[in-house]
């Protein structure tokens, strides 16, 4: 699977409070409205200007904080095609795979906002087309690949009538 898009670069420890600010708690069951505020406290321009296919790039520990599944959900609903970071907080990681948002783990230091990336999920490489650099990715655990391939956890348990991991 190939993902291609322009990047939005964020720093380390992008928390679920940055992605889904607590002050919009009342919108948690209104995902289209909540999506208008995605990542608002990290970059107020993101939600307004993100284009379908764009790629979110973080540093260390992306998705730190709460279990709110709305975090990866509204990133996906914003049109973002993948999140690339050095590592992910555990619950965000599970949530993202469960809802079918592609997650890529690699060194992101050389990536800048606006760079064009081509991600080959099968080969495990991020090609920075702007900088003409190839960055190897850390493969996802097999269990995550199985869930992603089935289209998320709901589809996985429906297809197999339970877990088949």
């Amino acid at each position, binding site marked *: 699977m190939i993902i291609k898009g322009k990047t939005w670069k964020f720093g380390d420890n992008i928390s679920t409070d940055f992605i889904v600010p607590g*002050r919009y708690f*009342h919108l948690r069951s209104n995902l289209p409205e909540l999506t208008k505020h995605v990542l608002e406290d990290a970059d107020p321009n993101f939600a307004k200007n993100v284009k379908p296919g764009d790629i979110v790039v973080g540093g260390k520990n992306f998705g730190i904080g*709460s279990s709110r599944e709305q975090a990866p959900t509204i990133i996906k609903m914003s049109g973002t095609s993948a999140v690339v970071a050095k*590592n992910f*907080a555990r619950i965000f990681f599970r*949530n993202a795979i469960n809802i079918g948002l592609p997650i890529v783990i690699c060194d992101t230091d050389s990536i800048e906002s606006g760079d064009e990336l081509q991600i080959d999920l099968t080969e495990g490489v991020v090609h920075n087309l702007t900088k003409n650099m190839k960055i190897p990715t850390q493969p996802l*655990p097999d269990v995550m690949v199985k869930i992603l391939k089935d289209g998320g956890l*709901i589809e996985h348990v429906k297809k197999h009538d339970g877990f088949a991991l």
Partner: protein
Amino acid sequence: MGKTMAEKIISEAFGQNVTKGEIVVVDVDLAFVNDASGPLAVEKMKAAGNGQLKVFDKEKVVVFIDHAAPSCHRELSNTHKVLRNMANATGAKMHDIDQGVCHQVAIEKYTKPGDIVAGADSHTCTGGALGAFSTGMGATDVGIAIMLGQTWLRVPDSIKVNVTGQLQKGVYAKDLILHIIGIIGADGANYKAIEFVGETIDSLDMDSRFTLSNMVVEAGAKVGLVPSDKITKDYLKKQGREFDWKEVKPDPEADYETVINVDASLIEPTISMPHTVDNVKPLKDCNGVKVNQVFVGSCTNGRLSDLKIVSSILKGKQINKSIRLIVSPASKEVMEEAINQGYITEIIKSGGTIFSPSCGPCFGAHGGILGDEEVCLSTQNRNFKGRMGNPEAFIYLGSPATAAATALAGEITDPREVL
């Protein structure tokens, strides 16, 4: 090779010996959601069940309304209806707005040593203090656990935190766990378990152990386990659940990824400074920082012993005129006992405000929201930018004693000055 507590609990749940790194599907003993995660979990359950809502065991599925309790928004009132309807339709246990924070109620009434607990809230790790593999997940994971009675886990690597020495006067479990998070870092325990052992842990009361386990997620850990011992047994007995007790402890030869030794006697009152929990400093480094609001509560430090410390420091005194002191008992049970013991009266007399037993101001959408440039000293677990409803505000984390001393002085103050 011996087994860690995580390996032991998961091996027993799985029915055969497993070691770190293995992926297993295990039965859950308890699955719960709250009003932050529950409405989405219900949607996911419907999607997975072709429109039908199904729970695997109505005695082992619990729904809590603790975040917006009572509701502060029309939209939230409607999501609360979704949860009540789900509980009515399935027979799942329901704890409505009067009951308190899900993690507190779970440890009071449900979680048992040796259990596998899947809760749709990151601080589900609180239950690790009872020797349960109690971990936070998202709405889909827990929705599926509620339907099928199963979840998948990677048997984690474990970090052993070995604590020796006496905590000094004015220094508490909160200072200890902030100190430990400062050592490990916000992602140092990602995907791993933490096990708290050593003579200091052996003598800590359950309220203190809950504070330790509650905050392990701030270092990335999936669970923070404390061996289940006589103190655990006495706690369960007090809760009318002594038959829920069993011993859970690591093997002497267990294989740990890392061992961290902490001398508790060297720890001072400790603070997490804005805007990350691992931005940990001895309190003296922020002594005198002016504060507008003090919050005592949450699943971290809203328990009876926390309210006792606060009321004993405030007794017969008035908080500083520049301070708003908000106190939210972690549960109805805590509140009742705090009333019986006179703690609530002392807090009110000193100028504090009591908030309903709930998550309270901790998550930034229901009371106690900070103004621009305002500073809060809170006993909660997170100080991320925007956490208390305003990205222009600043949150410092500390112990209940530090909170009370700060409320009296109007600035961050070492509790040893008032004890």
